[in-house]
């Protein structure tokens, strides 16, 4: 539904063309929550802003539902933009308008709706995001989480099919972030809304995204289902994100294992395997001992997963690993 075709984008800074995006080429499916993660300056904002053409590509096309939006005229682009909602890190609400007026704003701009119709729609949206009693307040009187809810209600006013989120939770505390992400996930399900979410926080992607693209220096370093990308990171940037999120330092970890005897592997369980007593059973069968050095059991969106770093000693370690692999675990050698 959203397709980037050979996108290049450079900014002209002091007479030089500075590249921000370099050969972006992928698709985002309808109804998907698609995460784009990358470090500061990787080009995330630039990429997401191509979707509503707040930023024009220097080369390449952006195709939405079969239409090349870079070829639209001014009126066509405005109509297209009404079908794409956007929320922002700093909310960007109009401080001179009340909550209700902010939510009504896109409808008023479109000019296709009667007063009563707008009023009903605003009431429904405010009820959906839980802000009915704040309708007549001004943004300055709201908390960050409430402001972002207003932003979401406003973005949904014109019943868009796509919602763009530029660091939408970066200015919020962890609890509020959780609540806003939950709201986004619910809206995705209820409205079949396609959500494109950019962030520099792995946790955000892990909680709600279906697929993720890791952006590095203006290029897609890695792309795929969230579980696959984060459980088996290939690119150094992805690996760094994963480690950052687990607040461990790779070098430090390997040093720590220096005096641990045996063969060290990282086992990854996903789905049902996560909760089954596989490790114990296999160890008994193969006559090996194991000690768990590190690990976490968590969920990626709705999929439970476990990742354990284990040292095996004694018995037939190879047989044990083969059995584990046969049960669908993925195995990475940390130290032979």
């Amino acid at each position, binding site marked *: 539904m959203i397709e980037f075709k050979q996108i290049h984008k450079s900014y002209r800074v002091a007479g030089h063309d500075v590249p921000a995006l370099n050969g972006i080429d992928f698709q985002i499916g309808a109804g998907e929550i698609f995460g784009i993660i990358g470090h500061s300056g990787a080009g995330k904002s630039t990429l997401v802003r191509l979707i*509503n053409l*707040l930023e024009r590509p220097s080369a390449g096309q952006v195709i939405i539902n079969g239409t090349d939006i870079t070829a639209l005229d001014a009126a066509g*682009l*405005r*109509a*297209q*933009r*009404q079908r*794409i909602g*956007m929320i*922002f890190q*700093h909310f*960007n*609400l*109009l*401080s*001179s*308008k009340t909550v209700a007026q902010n939510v009504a*704003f*896109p409808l*008023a*701009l*479109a000019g296709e709706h009667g007063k009563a119709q707008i009023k009903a729609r605003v009431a429904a949206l405010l009820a959906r995001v839980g802000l009915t009693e704040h309708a007549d307040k*001004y*943004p*300055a009187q709201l908390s960050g989480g409430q402001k972002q809810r207003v932003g979401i209600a406003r973005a949904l006013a*014109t019943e868009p099919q796509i919602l*763009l989120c530029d660091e939408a939770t970066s200015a919020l505390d962890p609890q509020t972030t959780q609540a806003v992400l939950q709201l986004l996930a619910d809206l995705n399900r209820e409205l079949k809304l396609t959500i494109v979410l950019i962030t520099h926080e792995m946790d955000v992607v892990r909680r709600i995204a279906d697929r993720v693209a890791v952006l590095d220096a203006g290029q897609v370093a890695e792309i795929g289902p969230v579980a696959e990308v984060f459980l088996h990171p290939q690119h150094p940037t992805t690996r760094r994100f994963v480690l950052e999120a687990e607040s461990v330092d790779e070098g430090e970890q390997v040093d720590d294992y220096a005096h641990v005897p045996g063969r060290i592997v990282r086992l990854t369980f996903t789905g049902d395997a996560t909760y089954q007593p596989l490790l114990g059973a296999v160890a008994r069968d193969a006559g090996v001992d194991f000690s768990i050095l590190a690990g976490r059991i968590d969920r990626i969106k709705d999929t439970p997963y476990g990742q354990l770093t284990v040292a095996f000693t004694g018995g037939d370690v190879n047989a044990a690993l083969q059995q584990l692999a046969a049960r669908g675990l993925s195995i990475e050698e940390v130290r032979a």
Partner: protein
Amino acid sequence: MNALFANIDWSDIGQAGLDTLLMLGGSLLFTLLLGLPLGVLLFLTSKRQLLAQPVVYGLLSFVVNILRSVPFVILLIVMIPFTVFIAGTSLGVAGAIPPLVVGATPFFARLVETALREVDRGIIEATQAMGATTTQIVLRALLPEALPGILAGGTVTAITLVSYAAMSGVIGGGGLGDLAIRFGYQRFQTDVMVVTVLLLLILVQILQTIGDKLVIHFSRR
């Protein structure tokens, strides 16, 4: 009382006060009407804004700077032929208004431009993302958001106009400034000088108070 204000003809003062108010009202009206669009145009054509037009901006900016750097007294004199052409006279209330407007409009336009610059870029961006036209962005997002700043600018402009209007007394502009110059200064009637200056002070106080109240009323931050 009468001994203290021996030279004062209160009906003269009343007339002069009224003239001052008329000059202020007339010139403020035209200054706001011309300065607001000029300020918006300055803002829109400036670098990285919606209608970025370096040449247009450079030209407008140059003209504004020239008008702002000419001392008002000089502007008054230089403009006499133009004033006669527009207002039919260069004297009295009608004759004072054109130079006042020309003197104050560039000043107010700059204040409008500055107030618009204070509006968060994100607001423009969000409105653009909703599919707004440039006109809609200006009228429905930028101006309402900048309103407190524009009102503050309007207040400063009104007060500047009070002092400009007093100066126009030099070329027979009428009003309190005229009275102060003709009687207070040229005929050494200190009491006239004191009363007119006091009245001007009161006028400035009132304008500032009204302006502040308006700014507070429209500030939602």
